[in-house]
């Protein structure tokens, strides 16, 4: 490996690294504004200047200079220091001194670096430049006078998000960042530009002026808005979650976060269920815990075991599902299901419902066939990875399903099962010539009566084209619910003779229907006595006879398994609202009243039982190498029919009870539909 000297210390580096990267490898911190590891190099802020020998006798931008063998790099000479101080003085010429009222204050790169390289007074006596504010949509608040034109936002939105909606116009002192024709930024990843902005030019609009960063208590936890399990940090003040920011996890979300995961937090404070309710004479009235649990217990005890059932929702943690499953099995019920969308997944082969290549692993694929999924809507941060391999020219992408805009080109093969039954030559050619082909199966392909047959056909296709080979498993199921893989892993599916979720809600099938945070299934026709345990007064609660207020995902510690099968632990950020309790504790209390006391008194004991019964839950943040399996045995062989595949997520901003309670999500949804329709609907 080549070697360079950084401040007199030898450092080995890989060919292609920049001087800045080599200096960082040596432990030297190089100040920067425009440089970002995951974006292309712009080299326009000049803050990362260093002295390099051999080379011209002047400071050089280390972010844009390739390192060379035998090079000598100096990061803290008088020349370097003077150059950086000069750059800082120029940057501060036009930057307003409004840190006390700036939302970036306290976590601002410019503020921090001005402490190191700034002067105590200004030599600039002219008028400062002022730039008009821009409208960039519901997520981005602009204060463009603060902008230092680093172009990080431009590069992110163009390169990563694939939506070139932000650009720089004019030159010199007139240069400014803007959106085209002052339109909103049309991206599901727009909030990331606020994170990237090294000054306070772009800040988070939904949280503007709501907090100062040093007031917040920071908790590292897991996102549940999709099935990726993005790593997040939830910041709270008192009992309220004020904001959610991404944490770095190279295997999942890198360092990005979708707008939905980030801005849904205002939904945690509205429409909350904060006390138990019991329906009396057709109307819900507040009740005590004792009374509400007593009513539910009486109903469960009175009903025959084969007439009670439970459906688990999309945001449930594994512990509460385990408690519900144990309780209903103890009651003698086989009617348990976590698949509100009616998918046929489940069974003995875990690889049959996982995203086997792994989220990061998909970047190794050289051909991707997407079936019945819209990754941009269902899993935006998986879509950025697909875009990455498309941009590099490494992979071809083909799609069977709705012809949507994925932010990259793909070969659209057809709309549904008919195309799958007779795959076009373009698809077979693509899969045949690929060394690492991957199939991404979405919930849109597996829903409905033809789901098992579609799953079987896809399994056969995977076998035929070597999607599962030595060291490679490209059979990938893309889930849309954070709880789904956990539920399938513990067998939260109908027992022998049990009804599926879609059958349970049919008229007259059950006497007592227990909805464990299940809001995405219509139980209004059921006619059963309905119990809803959840955090929000949403669809599930509306038709319920008893409401048991539970905790939202930021109010409990819980295990979640993401679509690739990685178990992660979410932490409690704040306490449940009002009289609400953690879901597992409610089920434990109920079990005592029905005479089948669950064998755990604490969350740790429950976890112990879960891990003992299903060892996969014991391996936190571990991604098991995907084992080979026979995909042709998945599903049931049958007629594929003529069904159009459509993503089950019709509006990503309104796809769960927390999102539906969020004003910011409502605003994003309205923008998605378009302004005219906002007035219309």
């Amino acid at each position, binding site marked *: 490996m080549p070697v360079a000297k950084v401040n007199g210390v030898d450092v080995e580096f890989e060919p292609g690294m920049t001087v800045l990267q080599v200096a960082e490898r040596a432990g030297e911190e190089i100040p920067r504004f425009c440089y970002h590891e995951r974006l292309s190099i712009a080299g326009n802020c000049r803050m990362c200047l260093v002295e390099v020998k051999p080379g011209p006798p002047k400071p050089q931008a280390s972010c844009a200079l390739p390192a060379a063998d035998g090079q000598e790099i100096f990061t803290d000479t008088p020349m370097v220091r003077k150059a950086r101080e000069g750059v800082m003085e120029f940057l501060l010429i036009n930057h307003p001194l409004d840190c006390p009222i700036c939302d970036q204050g306290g976590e601002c790169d410019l503020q921090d670096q001005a402490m190191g390289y700034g002067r105590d007074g200004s030599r600039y006596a002219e008028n400062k430049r002022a730039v008009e504010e821009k409208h960039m949509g519901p997520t981005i608040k602009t204060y463009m006078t603060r902008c230092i034109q680093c172009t990080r936002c431009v590069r992110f939105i163009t390169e990563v998000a694939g939506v070139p909606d932000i650009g720089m116009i004019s030159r010199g002192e007139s240069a400014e960042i803007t959106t085209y024709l002052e339109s909103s930024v049309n991206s599901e990843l727009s909030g990331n530009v606020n994170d990237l902005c090294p000054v306070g030019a772009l800040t988070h609009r939904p949280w503007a002026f709501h907090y100062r960063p040093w007031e917040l208590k920071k908790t590292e936890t897991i996102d549940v808005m999709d099935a990726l399990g993005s790593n997040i940090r939830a910041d709270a003040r008192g009992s309220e979650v004020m904001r959610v920011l991404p944490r770095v996890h190279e295997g999942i979300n890198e360092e990005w976060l979708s707008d939905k995961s980030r801005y849904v937090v205002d939904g945690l404070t509205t429409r909350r269920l904060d006390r138990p309710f019991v329906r009396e004479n057709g109307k819900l009235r507040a009740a005590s815990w004792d009374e509400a649990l007593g009513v539910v217990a009486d109903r469960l005890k009175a009903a025959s075991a084969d007439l009670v059932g439970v459906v688990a929702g999309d945001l449930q943690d594994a512990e509460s599902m385990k408690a519900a499953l144990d309780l209903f099995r103890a009651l003698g019920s086989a009617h348990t299901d976590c698949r509100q969308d009616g998918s046929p997944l489940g069974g003995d082969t875990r690889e049959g419902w996982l995203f086997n290549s792994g989220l990061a692993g998909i970047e190794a694929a050289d051909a991707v066939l997407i079936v019945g999924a819209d990754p*941009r809507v269902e899993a935006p941060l998986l879509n950025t990875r697909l875009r990455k391999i498309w941009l590099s020219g490494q992979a071809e992408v083909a799609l069977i399903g709705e012809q949507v805009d994925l932010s990259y080109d793909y070969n659209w093969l057809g709309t549904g099962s008919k195309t799958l039954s007779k795959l076009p030559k373009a698809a077979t050619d693509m899969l045949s010539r690929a060394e690492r082909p991957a199939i991404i199966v979405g919930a849109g392909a597996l829903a409905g009566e033809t789901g098992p047959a579609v799953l079987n056909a896809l399994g056969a296709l995977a076998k035929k084209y070597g999607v599962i080979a030595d060291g490679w498993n490209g059979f990938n199921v893309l889930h849309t619910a954070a709880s789904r893989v956990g539920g399938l892993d513990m067998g939260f599916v109908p027992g022998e003779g049990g009804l599926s979720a879609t059958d349970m809600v049919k008229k007259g099938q059950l006497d007592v229907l227990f909805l464990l945070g299940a809001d995405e299934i219509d139980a209004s026709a059921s006619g059963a006595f309905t119990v809803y345990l959840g955090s929000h007064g949403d669809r599930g609660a509306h038709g319920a006879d008893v409401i048991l207020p539970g905790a939202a995902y930021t109010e409990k510690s819980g295990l979640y398994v993401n679509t690739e099968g990685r178990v992660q632990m979410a932490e409690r950020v704040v306490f449940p609202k009002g009289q609400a309790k953690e879901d597992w504790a409610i089920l434990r209390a109920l079990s005592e009243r029905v005479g089948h006391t669950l064998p755990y008194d604490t969350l740790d004991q429950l976890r112990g039982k879960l891990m003992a019964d299903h060892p996969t839950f014991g391996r936190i943040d571990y991604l098991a190498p995907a084992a080979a399996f026979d995909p042709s045995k998945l599903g049931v062989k049958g007629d594929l029919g003529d069904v159009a595949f459509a993503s089950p997520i019709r509006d990503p901003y*309104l796809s769960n009870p927390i999102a539906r309670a969020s004003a910011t999500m409502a605003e994003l949804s309205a923008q998605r539909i378009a302004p*005219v*329709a906002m007035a*219309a609907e």
Partner: protein
Amino acid sequence: MRAVVTLLIGAFALTACGEPASEPADAPAVGAPAAPKTAAGPSATPVTLSEAMMGTACRAGVGAVYGQPGADVTVLDRAGSVITVGWRAPVDGGQLTAECRIDGNRVLWRPLDRPVAGENRWMDQPGDPVVTYSLDGSTLTVSLSLPDGTTTTTAEAVTTEEEAR
């Protein structure tokens, strides 16, 4: 007496200054709101559209409602007189869809993607926006009238290729 005279003069003055009595409006059909009159003036006698032209009217009409150029709205399916159209969602590129049918000179539509089932209804109730069309030779004019009285009109040339879509 003086008070009576003053009142009479006042009443006369008010009558003289007031708006002339408006002509009786055309009575709308029961259950269907009257299409607001627009500058473009939809043709009083609806023309009979060919199947292809129905698709064009639907694309233009639904496009007007959802702020999309007619060319960006595509016909996805036809079932009898109901045409399903789709377009790309502005924020994330997902597909949005609506059903559409032609009723006289009106373009009626029903969104299909709203998360609340009750919102996926035919937009033909009082208070809903009204979309009308008129065809003048090779020009299709679509008028959108919102409940707040705002009216926008768009015209587009209908080419042979477009008719064939």
